[in-house]
């Protein structure tokens, strides 16, 4: 009765493949890190501790700053009505579209020492030098706050939209004033949203590489420290640092998870959210409108600066406040010089291939986990989600280490220096994104639909193509577009694993900046930004 089924074999194969991609490299790093000399070096050098501590406090402060911006914005846009609410509400979520590196260079062009604003102030006050240097922890925190408040903003708006208005009315009927209602009713109900946003912000900040790399200067966090150590050739020490960062990430995740609690809003069922209240007092309404628009302009300024810089040809903008020449020279060079087309093509095909494979793996995984409920389902689900819990640098180092040795018997091959390794790294990073979306869609898919197709004579492939995939489309499109955009703009894994043949756009942006080709770097950034926006827009369509 219980003969081995083909499905169990498939489940075992998928589990092994995922384990080989996701766990095995981490274990190898762990093994290489158990090196007495390296551990002693790590423990005794003050620089190492400083970097680790910097990672932690930068991440915690990023959470606080992002919450301070995102939470009030969510309340403003969800509860109050003023002219332009809908448009601004969408514009404010825009930083989520920017690949981290593009956000960082946009900031550089806007607030940097030779940026737009510094230049204007320098000219206005006739200063000898730039009024400030955008460097160190403050600069990193500024970029983090700017790019990560979106998590709080989006999570809190979703939470507020689910909040049942009758809860607030009940609190009022029981004699609670506004403050009591806020702290005793609203905040506890929204706790899951708050914690969810905090976890996402913390993990993103901890793994953040672009901002510390560009603005850090002498100030090191763990991600930049690891890459620096690796470039210096001290591999054992890099392993120890990687393990330390992984431990901090897992510990942070576990601690934050404990505070999460159950999703009470879901437990109570769907509520009717309060309608946005129009602001009655004319003066207050004007204030809110001006503030809202002002804020939107501030938040959009980096994007606009990036576009402006991309239109300035090489060497044309020196000390003027506004650029004297504006044309499409940089874009022409981007699309006509093979040396610049190459990285764009690289990024596109590597992101496309890794996303496609990640989608296929997630569909097979979803089918095994949700539909066939195989014995290995928890392992498959856990392996699909794991790469999300660890910073990208950890995986980059782990893959570089694992696949620099030829030992086919233990499934290690030399992939370093080949075109395979970078797409493989993107794939690992893409798995949680596609896995999450597709598994969630699969869970909502009524199995009767697939059975109905079968009873109408549709075979396995026709059922997949005509019924299952169309029904999985929302989750699939969302996961795939996030994965594609992440791969397209990736710097964290690329900087560790790229070869000259596979150098992606992010690396090309860095080298353009190094050669003072700011216009070309900005043009690359604009292309990335537009493609990301289009892909995410298409992915989010119902």
């Amino acid at each position, binding site marked *: 009765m219980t003969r081995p089924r083909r499905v169990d074999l498939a489940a075992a194969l998928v589990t092994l493949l995922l384990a080989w991609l996701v766990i095995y490299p981490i274990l190898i790093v762990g093994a290489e890190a158990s090196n007495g000399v390296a551990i002693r070096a790590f423990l005794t050098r003050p620089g190492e501790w400083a970097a680790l501590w910097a990672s932690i406090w930068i991440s915690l402060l990023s959470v606080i700053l992002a919450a301070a911006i995102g939470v009030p914005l969510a309340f403003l846009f969800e509860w109050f009505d003023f002219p332009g609410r809908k448009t601004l509400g969408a514009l404010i979520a825009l930083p989520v579209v920017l690949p981290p590196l593009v956000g960082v260079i946009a900031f550089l062009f806007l607030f940097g020492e030779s940026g737009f604003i510094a230049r204007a102030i320098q000219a206005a006050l006739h200063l000898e030098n730039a009024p400030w240097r955008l460097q160190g922890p403050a600069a990193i925190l500024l970029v983090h706050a700017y790019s990560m408040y979106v998590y709080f903003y989006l999570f809190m708006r979703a939470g507020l939209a689910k909040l049942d208005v009758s809860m607030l009315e009940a609190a009022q009927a029981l004699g609670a004033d506004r403050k009591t209602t806020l702290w005793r009713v609203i905040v506890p109900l929204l706790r899951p949203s708050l914690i969810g946003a905090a976890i996402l912000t913390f993990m993103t900040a901890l793994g953040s590489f672009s901002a510390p790399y560009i603005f850090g200067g002498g100030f090191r966090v763990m991600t930049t420290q690891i890459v620096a150590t690796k470039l210096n050739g001290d591999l054992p020490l890099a392993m120890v640092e990687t393990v330390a960062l992984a431990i901090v990430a897992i510990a942070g995740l576990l601690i934050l998870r404990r505070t999460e609690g159950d999703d009470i809003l879901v437990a109570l069922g769907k509520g009717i959210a309060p309608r946005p209240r129009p602001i009655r007092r004319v003066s207050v309404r004007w204030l809110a409108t001006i503030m809202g628009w002002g804020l939107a302009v501030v938040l959009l300024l980096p994007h606009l600066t990036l576009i402006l810089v991309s239109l300035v040809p090489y060497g044309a903008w020196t000390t003027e406040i506004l650029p004297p020449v504006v044309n499409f020279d940089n874009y022409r060079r981007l699309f006509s010089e093979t040396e610049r087309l190459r990285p764009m093509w690289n990024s596109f095909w590597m992101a496309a291939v890794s996303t496609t494979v990640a989608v296929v793996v997630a569909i097979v995984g979803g089918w095994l986990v949700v539909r066939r409920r195989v014995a290995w389902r928890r392992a498959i689900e856990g392996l699909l989600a794991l790469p999300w819990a660890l910073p990208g640098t950890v995986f980059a180092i782990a893959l570089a280490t694992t696949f620099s040795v030829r030992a086919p018997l233990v499934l290690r091959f030399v992939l370093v220096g080949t075109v395979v390794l970078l797409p493989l790294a993107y794939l690992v990073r893409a798995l949680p994104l596609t896995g999450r979306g597709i598994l969630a869609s699969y869970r909502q898919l009524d199995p009767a*639909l697939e*059975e*109905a*197709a*079968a*009873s109408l*004579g549709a075979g*396995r492939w026709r059922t997949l193509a*005509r019924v299952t995939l169309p029904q999985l489309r929302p989750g699939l499109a969302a996961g795939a577009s996030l994965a594609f955009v992440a791969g397209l703009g990736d710097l964290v894994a690329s900087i560790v694993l790229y070869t000259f043949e596979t150098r992606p756009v992010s690396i090309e942006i860095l080298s353009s900046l190094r050669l003072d080709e700011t216009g070309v770097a900005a043009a690359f950034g604009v292309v990335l930004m537009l493609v990301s926006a289009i892909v995410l827009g298409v992915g989010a369509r119902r």
Partner: protein
Amino acid sequence: MVGSARAWHRGEAVTAAAFLQLQGIEKRWSDAVTIGPITLDISRGEILALLGPSGSGKTTMLRLLAGFEIADGGRIAVANDDVTNVPPARRRFGMVFQHYALFPHLDVGDNVGFGLAGSRERGAVATKVSAALALVDLVGFERRKVHELSGGQQQRVALARALAPEPRVLLLDEPLSNLDPALRERTRHELREVIKRVGITTVFVTHEQEEAFDLGDRIAVLNQGRLEQAGSADELYERPASLFVATFVGRANVFRGAAAKLLGGGATRNGVVVVRPERLRFGPAGLPGVVRERRYTGAAAFFTVESDDHERFEVLAEPDAAQVGERVYVEATRVIAL
């Protein structure tokens, strides 16, 4: 329309009475939960109801017939063609699902045409789709979205979709459970009419006796995975094979011991007698008791009578046959001895 619909099912020339055969069909979920072995013959054009309480195995039986579950023992054959291990896609059994399972991303026409993919000709598919929709009285609904339809219309689309590929057997899983009660009785008659017009052999699952009686030609009563009895509504009601069938199908008063003897159930095997409420009447002599409750239904009333040994039973009689609190004697006009 009637003629062409019937012509769909003229293809197979089977003279034997049993068109769909279940021989010792068994499904073992675990040691404690097993279904069957069940043997049942269904003749061509017959509508069979699988009736039973929840957990009786009726849905499993239907899914075994559809091929979504594979039997652990036994054989299923259609017109002497063994389909026990044939996958659902090649079984040519049509199925109407409990929640209809209409594809939300396809319109009505594409839903109904889904099973017609084999025929490459566009025109032929369109003709068959409109014929199937005409059958369920939904002419011109091809381009409507399924979520715009009412529950009853969705049910009819599901039926049209199942019938369009001209299946050998039609399976219905609780076909009326998703409709509101007012609509149920009308839909039941329409459903029976369509099935009879097409002449297709049909098996449907229900837990409601009224539905089984009204829609089925024959009813198979299942309990805890066993087939208790299969027969016409009259047979099940008048000659139940077991106490379970007697009490599950229709209202029943169960008497044992002295009370059973008093009502005239002398020669019973277990000393158990079942009497329908309408087969009891108040008389000058018989089983003594006191009327505790009276439920008026219009044409008649149900009287709850408590016998001297504190057993309660129901009598269906004229509304003014007795008063609450009155001491009465009850006699049986017909008893079912078990």
